[in-house]
């Protein structure tokens, strides 16, 4: 039975071995002794070695640390809402997507009741418009336009 360190080590080992195998396709230049695969191979071999050592140390460990108590509901929801925001940006455009994201996440983190809805909406509108104005007008950053909305 392996613990979290073992799982992390196995993931690291698998990832580094896959990438190490992928370096086999890299060309070896004829004129210089060191090619583009030279350094990645050293680093990936080192990573694989450390990952294997982490797995071994976990297997040999007699007692495993207890994870700190945590509540993941808000973390998962925040990641989900943020992912939706990131993928909505090119479709809805910065202003609309940001407004929806800020309002949605506020409502998720602290469900509003009664007049607090106005605060949620005001913060969302202000954030979307203020950041848009500062970056587009003052800092010349062309923020994403929506393919669906055209703005």
């Amino acid at each position: 039975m392996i613990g979290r360190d073992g799982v992390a080590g196995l993931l690291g080992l698998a990832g580094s071995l896959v990438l190490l195998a992928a370096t086999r396709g890299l060309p070896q230049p004829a004129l210089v002794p060191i090619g583009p695969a030279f350094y990645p191979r050293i680093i990936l071999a080192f990573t694989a070695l450390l990952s294997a050592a982490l797995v071994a140390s976990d297997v040999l460990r007699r007692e495993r640390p207890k994870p700190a108590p945590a509540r993941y509901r808000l973390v998962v929801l925040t990641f989900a809402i943020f992912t939706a925001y990131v993928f909505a940006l090119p479709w809805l455009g910065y202003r609309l997507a940001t407004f929806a994201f800020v309002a949605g996440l506020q409502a998720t983190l602290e469900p509003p009741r009664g007049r607090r809805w106005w605060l949620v909406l005001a913060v969302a509108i202000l954030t979307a418009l203020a950041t848009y104005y500062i970056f587009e007008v003052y800092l010349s950053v062309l923020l994403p336009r929506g393919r669906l909305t055209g703005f």
Partner: protein
Amino acid sequence: MFSLLFVSLFEVMHLQYLVPLAIGTWAGLIGGAIPGVTITMTIILVLPFTFGLDPLQGLATMTGVYVGGCAGGLVSASLLGIPGTPSAIATTFDGFPMTRKGQPGRALWLGTWASAIGGLLGAIFLIGGTIPLAKFALQFGPWEYFSLFVFALAMVAGLTEKSLLKGFLSGAIGLVVTVIGADPIMAVPRLSFGSEFLRSGFQFLPILIGVFAFAQIMTDLEKAGGEEARAAGPIPDLSVSHLGVIWEILRRPFLLLWSTVIGVWIGVLPAIGGSAANVMAYDQAKKFSKHPEKFGTGIPEGIIAAESSNNANVAGSLVTIMAFGIPGDAVTAVMLGAMIIHGIQPGPLFIAQEPRVAYGIFAAYLLAHPIMIVLQWLGARFYLRVVSVPKSILTPIVLVFCVVGAYALNNIIENVYVLLLFGVVGYLLVKFGFPLAPLILGVILGDQIEINLVRALMTDADPWLFLTRPISGAMLALSALSVVLALWQHRRQYGRAPGPETVEPDF
């Protein structure tokens, strides 16, 4: 040297530099005051606003954030008993008891003036020390640079508190990230798996933002589990005799100087950051005190030692960045990243090639301290109000800034996807108990490590030169020594108490 410094001081006093510097300092004070928003995150959040500025304007802003952030942490540490940043932990020990004794103004201003005086004393070392150290570093060839970067990485990974192996693995993952994309010598795309975006590799800013912002925000959300709005109580009366407070600091010259020396020295060393300087200076002040039993009850010595050291630490860190081009910890790694984004490659040639910018940074550092005093005087009550803004409002706003910061780097949406990817990676690493500082250092130093390794081997294929060249050999010996010491410390620390422990995130 002094003529250049005076010219730069006058230049930075022009409104076009002074305004960004003041805004940066102000942002640093606010970010530093909000518990959970570290100096690192404040620098990351402010950085995109400087993309359109010229390098000196941008770097003046970032210097202001760094100086302001160190001082901002003391507002919540002294007045609320919650350190706004890790570098204000020891400030809480005497700052908050002094506030509870009914002297909040004295606690706040002892810290603020000690920060400013300690920071300005540190400037003597920054200005006087950077140039000789940079001249020394000019003797470095690719062997020495490679070994220096390895030393920095070994120190940061080795000083990881929980697991040495995870510290090194975290650094190695950072290095792996940098091998994706074109190789720096022949520009052959590597490990891009056919992706056009990956052919040019990952930009480090979206990685920094993703890793730090998400690890911090999500860990806070776990603990909160819901809204934990801080009660916005009445703002205390912060009036105080400033001359009296300054006299209280200056009549302890040994304490002030010793704490400053500790701060600067810890700043110069890779791997040890402002929080260590803050705690170590406090500890030293207690050891040298005639009345150590009074520490923790709200005495001025505790606040002066803690605050003068953490601002002096900024000066020491800037020396290492500007002279050698190596960051000491996560905050300085982000500062180094900010310099690179503004087209500056810190290192020994930086001062010779870009004297205007280098001396401009010195000038910005010097001017940031009086600006910080003024802004603290104008806004301390306001910062306390900001601290009480609920997380449900702060979190989405911070995340929007993260998105804009990642996007604005090249105006491409793929950088936002990278932000999301590394946000997940950063959070998972924290959950698996990996420290993030070695990862970031690996990401920032990876290209330079490769370039110098390949250059050295192409100049002379003999790998023993890394060991036989004196400076390079010394650096590698120090790297090995730091690993051995770290192993010994871990064995000593954890060998005695093998029982289960609680996993806490380690940023």
